[in-house]
C-alpha cells in the first residue's frame, strides 16, 4: 500500500494537553485582542460586511501569526464582557477559536467534544432563531468546511483505538453523541431545508428570486446567514458522502447547483475548489471519466490564472495542495480514458510536466502501472472515514485505514478490468479493418477471448449518464460485421460555423478601427 496516504496531523505532540499550556494563560487578553473583538462585535451589529470580512480574513490572521503562533487565543470567558456577553458573538468567537486550535495545534479529545457542542449551539441559533446578521461568504463557507473537516478528523482519531488511554475511552463512551454521523448529516440537511435554498435557486432561474445576483447577500435589511449556510451545506453534503463512499447520493446533493455557471460557490475560492474536486472525484469513481476530465480541466486552468491573487491568503497552501491532487486525478482519468482533445493547452503542458512519464507507464497496465495508479489514487483521494461507533472490546485495534483500503481496492479492481483494453487500442489505431482471426493471432488469444475483450472495450467506453443515456467516451471506436472488425476514428470535426462567425466579427472590428484613423 502506498505511503502517500497519511492522515495529516497538526504539529505538536498528539494529545499532549501540556504542550498547549506552556506559556498560555487563557484569561490574559492583550490589548490588540480586546480591540479586535470590540470592533468585530460592532461591525457585526452594524452589518458592515466589508469591515467584517477585512477583520475576519486579515486581522485575525495577523494577530494569530504575531501573538498566537502556537497557543490558543484567549478563552471566550475572558473576552465576553467586552462584547456585552452577547451569546451569538461568543458562539462565533468560539468557532474561530477552535478553528485556530485545529490549524496550529492538536486538539485534545475534550476540546473536540467541546467544539462539537459549540457547533450544535451555534447551528441551533441559526436554525431556530431569527438571526439578524450579514456575514461574509468566506466566513460562512469556512464554517461549513471546518465543520465537515472536524468530523472527518474526529472519525480518524476515534478509529485509532490501539493507544487510547483509559481516560480517553471513558470520555468517548460518555460523549458518544459527539460528532456522530447522524448529527452531522442532519445539521447539513436541516440547513438545506430550513433555508429553502433549493426552491430559491429554482425560482431564481425563472426570475422570481434574487440570490446569485446578490452573491447571496440580502440588501433589503435581512440576514444572509441561513440562506448561504443552506447553500454551502449542499457542498458539505457532497463532501461527507464522498468520505463515506456514496458518490451517487453525493452528486445528487449537489444537483441544485449549476456548476456550468458562476454562482455563490465560485464567490469563495475554497468553496469553488472543494466543489469541483469532490464533483470530479465522484464522477471518476462512477466511471464518468469524460465529465471528470472536463471539470478538472476547467478548474485547473482557473487556478493557473488566478492563484497569484491568493498568495497572501491563509488558504493559499490548501489551494496549491488541491491543485496538485487534481492533476493526479486528471492523470488517472486520462490514462483510463484517453481524450486529449478535452484538455486545454496550458493544463496539458502542466500535466505532461508533472505526470507525463507516469501516465506513459500507467498505460502499459503491467505491475508497475498498478503501483502508479495506487500511488496517485492514494495521494489524491479524500480522507475516507468509518462512520460507525468504535468497538470497545479487547483487543483494541486501529481501523482508520479500513475505509480508504476498500475504496482503493475497488478502484484498482476497475483498473484491472480495463487492463486488456490498451492492447486493443494499439491495434485499432493501426488498422481500418481486420478480421477477428488475425487480431486474435496478434494478441495471442483465441477468438472467443477476443470477442470478450472487444465487448469489454465497448462496455467500458460507453458510460451510462445520470439520465440513463449512453455516452461514448471512446476516442477510437469499431463495429463488428460477422467476423470483420471495422475501425472508426472519431475525427474532431472542424467547427467551420464558429470559425467564420469569429472571423466576421474580427474583420468588422479591424475595419471599424481603420475607419477611425485620420490620415494627415
Amino acid at each position, binding site marked *: 500500500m502506498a505511503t502517500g496516504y497519511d492522515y495529516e496531523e497538526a504539529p505538536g505532540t498528539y494529545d499532549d494537553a501540556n504542550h498547549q499550556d506552556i506559556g498560555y494563560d487563557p484569561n490574559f487578553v492583550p490589548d490588540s485582542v480586546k480591540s479586535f473583538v470590540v470592533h468585530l462585535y460592532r461591525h457585526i451589529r452594524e452589518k458592515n460586511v466589508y469591515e467584517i470580512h477585512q477583520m475576519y480574513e486579515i486581522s485575525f490572521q495577523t494577530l494569530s501569526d504575531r501573538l498566537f503562533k502556537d497557543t490558543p487565543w484567549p478563552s471566550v470567558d475572558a473576552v465576553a464582557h467586552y462584547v456585552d456577553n452577547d451569546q451569538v458573538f461568543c458562539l462565533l468567537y468560539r468557532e474561530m477559536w477552535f478553528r485556530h486550535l485545529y490549524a496550529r495545534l492538536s486538539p485534545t479529545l475534550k476540546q473536540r467534544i467541546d467544539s462539537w457542542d459549540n457547533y450544535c449551539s451555534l447551528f441551533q441559533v441559526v436554525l431556530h432563531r431569527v438571526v439578524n446578521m450579514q456575514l461574509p461568504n468566506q466566513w460562512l463557507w469556512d464554517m461549513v468546511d471546518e465543520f465537515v473537516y472536524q468530523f472527518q478528523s474526529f472519525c480518524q482519531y476515534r478509529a485509532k483505538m490501539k493507544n487510547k488511554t483509559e481516560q480517553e475511552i471513558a470520555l468517548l463512551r460518555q460523549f458518544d453523541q459527539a460528532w456522530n454521523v*447522524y448529527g452531522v448529516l442532519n445539521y447539513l440537511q436541516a440547513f438545506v431545508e430550513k433555508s429553502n435554498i433549493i426552491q430559491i435557486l429554482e425560482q431564481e432561474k425563472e426570475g422570481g428570486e434574487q440570490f446569485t445576483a446578490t452573491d447571496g447577500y440580502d440588501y433589503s435589511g435581512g440576514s444572509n446567514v441561513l440562506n448561504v449556510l443552506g447553500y454551502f451545506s449542499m457542498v458539505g453534503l457532497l463532501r461527507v458522502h464522498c468520505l463515506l463512499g456514496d458518490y451517487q447520493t453525493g452528486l445528487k446533493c449537489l444537483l441544485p447547483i449549476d456548476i456550468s455557471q458562476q454562482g455563490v460557490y465560485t464567490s469563495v475560492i475554497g468553496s469553488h475548489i472543494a466543489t469541483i474536486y469532490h464533483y470530479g472525484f465522484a464522477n471518476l469513481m462512477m466511471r464518468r471519466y469524460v465529465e471528470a476530465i472536463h471539470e478538472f480541466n476547467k478548474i485547473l486552468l482557473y487556478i493557473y490564472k488566478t492563484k497569484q491573487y491568493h498568495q497572501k491568503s491563509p488558504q493559499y497552501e490548501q489551494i496549491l495542495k488541491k491543485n496538485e491532487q487534481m492533476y493526479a486525478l486528471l492523470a488517472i482519468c486520462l490514462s483510463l480514458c484517453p481524450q486529449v482533445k478535452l484538455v486545454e493547452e496550458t493544463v496539458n503542458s502542466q500535466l505532461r510536466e508533472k505526470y507525463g512519464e507516469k501516465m506513459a507507464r500507467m498505460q502499459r497496465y503491467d505491475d508497475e502501472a498498478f503501483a502508479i495508479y495506487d500511488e496517485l489514487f492514494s495521494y489524491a483521494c479524500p480522507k475516507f472515514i468509518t462512520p*460507525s461507533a468504535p468497538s470497545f472490546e479487547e483487543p483494541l485495534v486501529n481501523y482508520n485505514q479500513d475505509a480508504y483500503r476498500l475504496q482503493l481496492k475497488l478502484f484498482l479492481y476497475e483498473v484491472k*478490468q480495463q487492463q486488456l483494453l490498451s492492447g486493443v487500442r494499439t491495434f485499432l489505431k493501426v488498422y481500418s479493418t481486420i478480421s477477428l482471426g488475425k487480431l486474435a493471432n496478434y494478441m495471442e488469444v483465441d477468438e472467443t477471448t477476443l470477442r*470478450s*475483450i472487444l465487448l469489454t472495450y465497448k462496455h467500458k467506453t460507453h458510460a451510462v449518464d445520470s439520465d440513463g443515456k449512453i455516452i461514448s467516451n471512446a476516442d477510437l471506436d469499431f*463495429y463488428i460485421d460477422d467476423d470483420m472488425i471495422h475501425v472508426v476514428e472519431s475525427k474532431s470535426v472542424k467547427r467551420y460555423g464558429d470559425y467564420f462567425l469569429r472571423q466576421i*466579427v474580427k474583420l468588422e472590428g479591424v475595419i471599424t478601427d481603420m475607419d477611425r484613423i485620420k490620415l494627415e
Partner: protein
Amino acid sequence: MGRETPKQQQVSYTVEQLVAVNPYNPDILPDLENYVNEQVSSQTYSLDANLCLLRLYQFEPERMSPQIVARILVKALMAMPAPDFSLCLFLIPERVQMEEQFKTLIVLSHYLETGRFRQFWDEAAKSRHIVEAVPGFEQAIQTYAIRVLSLTYQKIPRPVLAEAINIEGLSLDKFLEHQAANSGWILEKGHGRGQLIVLPRNEFNHPELKKSAADTVPLEHITRIFPILG
C-alpha cells in the same frame, strides 16, 4: 418480517418520500428493508432507496442483514450497464465482501463487466439459490447482453448470440422470431456457418448515424453578426 399492508402502492410511495426528505434516520431502516423485498417480488428497482439502506448499515453494522444486502446486489447486477453494483460495493465493508455469497456475486459481476457471458451463465447455474431468489434476473441479464452486443455488432453469428443470452435450439428459434417481428432484427444466412443475425442500426454500431452536433451553430450566435450583415 414484512409489514403486510393492503395498500402496497402507498407504502412504496412513502418510502421514496422518506429517502428524499429524511434519509439520515435510523428509524426508517425496517421500512427500507421491506422495500428491498418489495422490489424483489414486484420486479421494481430503486437505487437511491437501496443506497440509503446500505449507508444506514454502514452507520450501524450490527443491524446489517446479509440476506438483504445480497438481494440489493442481485438487483444492482440486473441494472447493468449502469454501475450500480460497484456503487453498492463501495458501501459494503471489506470483511462482509469476503463472505462466500458475496464473493460469488462479485465474480458474476466481473464476468458481466468483461463480456465473459459463457463463464457468467456457468457460474450462475452453480449459484441458483442466489439468483433464483430474485424474479426477472435471467431476463435482465439477457437484456444487458443484447445491449452490449448491439453496441458492438452489425451482424452477429448465431452461436455467439446464443452463448451470450444462454438460449439455444428451439427456444432460440422462437426468441429470434419474436425479435424479428417486434424489434427489427433480421435473420440472414451466413456463409456456410449457419445463421447471421442483423441487429438494429444505432449510432454505436453504425457510426455514420452519429449526429454530428459539432457543426451546428445556435441561432443566438448568429444574432451576433446581424448588425454587421445589416
